[in-house]
């Protein structure tokens, strides 16, 4: 029987380093996809990914086991990405996912192995969707990405972001309206 996240985290705390490997393996695609979208850069996403798991290595008690492991993981990742973003901003580096959608993470993602769904969407439509996503406010985009990649419930997302659930739903709703407005032409 497959061990749960909480059981693997407990095994790691008890001294089994391989349990961490299983946790990483289980969540790497979702967490990395999320970080890649948030940061827009492969090196930045990998740095934050590593930082999150090294945090657990240095202090296995950092995850308290009271909350869902995935919620802890995405919350720590989101905060680390925000810290990194602030450091980059302080150094005068430009966020790659700008309001115009000019240099979004899709520029990097396009180099990933294309799957059947990517072929279905096509490059042009894909770019228009990326531009629509880039037109969302930072808050709206964050909630949308968090929901999509972490698959946490809106209640869990609200707890992770420390905002009321109504705020999370309102951001999602405004994101939906904005995406519709931007993608109207594609849907006709």
């Amino acid at each position, binding site marked *: 029987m497959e061990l749960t996240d909480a059981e693997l985290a407990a095994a790691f705390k008890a001294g089994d380093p391989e349990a961490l490997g299983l946790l990483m393996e289980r969540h790497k695609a979702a967490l990395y996809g999320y970080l890649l979208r948030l940061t827009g850069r492969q090196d930045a996403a990998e740095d934050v990914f*590593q930082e999150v798991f090294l945090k657990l290595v240095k202090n296995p008690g950092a995850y308290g086991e009271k909350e869902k492991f995935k919620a802890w993981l995405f919350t720590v990742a989101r905060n680390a990405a925000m810290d990194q973003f602030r450091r980059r901003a302080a150094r005068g580096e430009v966020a790659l996912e700008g309001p115009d959608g000019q240099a979004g993470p899709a520029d990097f993602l396009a180099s*990933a192995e294309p799957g059947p769904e990517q072929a279905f969407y096509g490059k042009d439509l894909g770019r228009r969707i990326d531009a629509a996503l880039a037109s969302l406010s930072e808050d709206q985009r964050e909630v949308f990405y968090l929901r999509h990649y972490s698959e946490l419930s809106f209640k869990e997302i609200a707890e992770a972001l420390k905002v009321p659930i109504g705020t999370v739903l309102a951001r999602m709703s405004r994101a939906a309206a904005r995406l519709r407005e931007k993608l109207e032409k594609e849907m006709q």
Partner: protein
Amino acid sequence: MSCEYGEKLILYLYGEADAGLKAGVEAHLPGCAACRGELEALRLAGGRLAAFSAEPRPSVLAAVMSAARNARRGAFSFGWREALLSGALASVLGGVFAFTSPAGKELAWNSGLDANLDSVEYSVYQEQTDLSASAGDWDYRYSELEDDAAAVSENA
């Protein structure tokens, strides 16, 4: 223009609506082009995100695992040595506390326990220094391996 179903629509799309809410949204949708448009837009955007499956490079995962295994080995080695030295120190201190009467003090003085304590303290200090140096060596070797890995990926 969005209608008042905005947030209900979100709960519906993501499977968090209860039966009543679900039925209400389904009854509302045929007559509301804006809501149908929002659903479709969210599906398109979600599909776009799902279309890519990127993963961190294996070297990123390997670095984390290496740190995890080293931390585990370090903790075990340190605990074992510390336990041994602590035990020795506790035995000696126990001997000292056993000689608390004036006669005992005299006995302790003449028995050379002070010198033994100094010796144990020095051993603890030496072990700590060795451990610290060993940890430094590992760190240095690890950074060398990271450099090698970077050079290999640059050449690849």
